[in-house]
């Protein structure tokens, strides 16, 4: 390396040294509670989900329908023209079989996150959600899927009002 460098600083510790208390460390938590406003466009999106409808928004200038809906078109930086109810069907753009939870616990049955291109939105425009009622090994990119909703009385205006997307053979 550089002629003038002979040793590199930095002292490596092992997880065991922390766990066994061989080195001192301070532990604390930062609990935080938040109440996020939905805003206008996502408010419309969530209200739609409560009614069992996926909304996108449309820009007439750019002729693009995006999902989730938003108030501003990124392409022309003008307001979106209108909200559009989309289908609750689509195709799997990509997926994963995930054996690790968000807090790094190992699980035997994989979670099945996917990007789903929603019918009625512009090409390659989708949302992130999960797949269900399908053997993980059977999942394929390009597979047609349909939303499985919570019952109307259980829906609360959240992305989780859709339980998951399941394989669906029908045409749209």
């Amino acid at each position: 390396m550089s002629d003038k460098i002979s040793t590199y600083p930095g002292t490596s510790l092992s997880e065991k040294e922390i766990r066994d208390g061989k080195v001192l460390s301070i532990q604390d938590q930062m609990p935080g509670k938040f109440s996020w406003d939905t805003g206008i466009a996502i408010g419309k999106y969530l209200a739609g989900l409560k009614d069992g409808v996926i909304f996108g928004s449309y820009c007439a200038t750019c002729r693009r329908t995006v999902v989730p809906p938003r108030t501003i078109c990124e392409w022309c930086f003008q307001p979106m023209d209108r909200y559009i109810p989309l289908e609750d069907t689509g195709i799997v753009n990509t997926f994963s079989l995930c054996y690790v939870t968000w807090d790094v616990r190992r699980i035997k049955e994989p979670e099945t996150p996917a990007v789903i291109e929603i019918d009625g939105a512009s090409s390659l425009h989708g949302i992130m959600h999960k797949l269900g009622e399908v053997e993980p090994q059977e999942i394929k990119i390009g597979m047609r899927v349909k939303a499985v909703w919570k019952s109307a009385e259980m829906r609360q205006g959240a992305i989780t009002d859709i339980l998951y997307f399941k394989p669906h053979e029908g045409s749209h």
Partner: protein
Amino acid sequence: MSMRKVAVVGAGMTKFVRRALETGKELSWQASSMALQSCEMTMDDVEAVCLGTAPDAFDGVHMNGEYLSDGAGAWRKPYMRSYVGGGTGVFVPIQGWYHVASGLFDVVLVVAEEKMSSYYPHAQGAFLTIFDHTTERALKPNLLWIFALEMNRYMQTYGISKEDIAQVAVKNKRNAADHPSALLGDPNITVEDVLNSEVLAWPVNRLDVSPVSDGAVAIVLAAEHVAKRITDKPVWIEGVGWNLDTAYWTNRDLAYPRYVEYAARMAYDMAGIKEPRKQINIVEPYDPFDYKELHHMEGLLLADRGEAPQMVADGVTQRDGDMPVCPSGGLLGVGNPIAAAGLMKIAELFWQLRGEAGNRQVPGQPTRGLAQAWGDLMQVGTVVIMGR
């Protein structure tokens, strides 16, 4: 545009480790003082300081720039922290560059630090908050999801196999065996080792992923008249570029990083590079996951779309190949203390272009290199081109 020439004149770095005894401040000081010593300068010579570090959530410290300031030598100096997620490590030298190119300062210290181990027991939990709080976080995503989703889309689009991709992890971890600061160098690792490692989020296995790490890197930037006084081997920053794609990451083409292309085109234009494949001798693209090196080589226009795996298979990207890629060992081998890992790539080009990279030295006296990083929610690209 009238801009002054800016050179890298010194560099320093700590070891990259899973968990460092030293605090972020202490790591920052170690890298900074090493960088200054390497060019026989002191803090009195430094007119301004630029600091890069990734989300405050890792450290549990709000305003991490202020927290790290004494270790970065910021006391009573113009000081600013920049942050563009994983792209930070190659953005912070760009920030330092425009501090000097503009004529505002003659000498700037650029420091990048990351201490990911503080989020206990694993930094992964801190990544939950990068997803949209209303439309995504309720699904309890983890960071592996977006990489696995993007990797699968990339593989499917071009018919690329996991074996093709695993070759990148093998190359980089083998290269890292020659890096004295490396966390995961392994001269004997094989493709089978990568394919047989634990499946975390198919198609991502454990050895497809760079390790969570602690570490710091620093470089010294100087205007031309100062650089020529300090050293007879200045390494010039010839071009910089950065670009952001939509934050609605499920609304764009996951198989191709257009934002990297735009950042690269900006940098190529500035450097007057017309044929990057002929004019760039060494590449240090961002490789937090092995497929990302390939994805980025294509975005940088250094490989045709879907063709980067063939370059690896043909040995073109080996340290002694026609276009060495990640001769440092990259994030996969040296480690991934996020902002520090990006600046490590700049330091590597500095040493390589001066012929000071020791066992890692790329043969043939390379004259120009490119470093690139990537981040935010997979949509920011940062590029620096350096030459001697």
